[in-house]
């Protein structure tokens, strides 16, 4: 049953991801992105990464995409107008690069051209669940990166607030100069 579920989620994921790129309305794009993140969370569950799956929904769907929606609504964006020769050229190049990349990546995967490293003989202890196992590793071997991450978040938060608050007068002056 698991492989079928995987295929189902994969199909949903690809379809929604394509819609993100193709749909002209940013709000719809964002909603499809939510859907694709959710199906990715499903795939994580199938890969026995329950904790990551849930965090995927909480962080991506619950926080990041809400932020995106807020910004889109705040900027009051409507359908994107995408016409003209320049955009057609760009679209052509983009799809070509994409096709090449997919081809190469497919070849690499098919040839086994990746070296995944040594496989550990003993699977990680799942006693107490995936979350506990991750916690054990996170708070021992990866404690320092974990703490650094908190500083990163703090900096990002301060940066975002400072940028959004801004100085209206200075902004206006700069805008007129150009």
């Amino acid at each position, binding site marked *: 049953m*698991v492989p079928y579920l995987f295929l189902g989620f*994969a199909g949903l*994921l*690809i379809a929604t*991801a394509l819609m*993100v*790129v193709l749909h002209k309305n*940013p709000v719809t794009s*964002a909603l499809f*992105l939510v859907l*694709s*993140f959710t199906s*990715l969370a499903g*795939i*994580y569950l*199938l*890969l026995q*990464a329950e904790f*990551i799956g849930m965090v*995927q929904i909480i*962080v*991506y769907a619950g926080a*990041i995409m809400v932020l*995106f929606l807020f910004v889109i609504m*705040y*900027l009051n*964006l409507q359908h*994107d107008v995408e016409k003209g020769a320049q*955009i057609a050229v760009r679209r052509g190049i*983009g*799809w070509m*690069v*994409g096709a090449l*990349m*997919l081809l190469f990546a*497919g070849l690499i*995967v*098919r040839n086994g051209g*990746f070296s995944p490293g*040594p*496989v*550990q003989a*003993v*699977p*990680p202890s799942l006693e107490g669940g995936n979350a506990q*196992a*991750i916690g054990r*590793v*996170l708070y021992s071997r*990866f404690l320092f990166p974990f703490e650094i*991450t908190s500083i*990163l*978040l703090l900096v*990002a938060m301060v*940066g*975002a607030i400072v*940028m959004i608050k*801004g100085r209206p007068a200075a902004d206006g002056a700069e*805008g007129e100069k*150009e």
Partner: protein
Amino acid sequence: MIPVEWSLALSAVLFTIGVVGVLVRRNALVIFMSIELMLNAANLAFVAFARQQNSLDGQIFVFFVMTVAAAEVAVGLAIIVNVFRLRETVFVDEINLLKG
């Protein structure tokens, strides 16, 4: 158990869609969303390898990538809002302040 190649292929497709999105679209917000897609493709590969190697390190990496993504989105969206306030547009082909 799902073969690791399946996940990798899916990851590759997802990544390519993200790349195409960045190259094709001109709305900064959609480009940003495409970048998130690429990050998620990388995450998927991490989780798949973690599963294959019986190791949790891959999942830890995903955890960190998510943190970075959250920070990136917060700052990136702030920049986009500021750019919009300045130039009244979110289309990246109308903004070239950094032209050399």
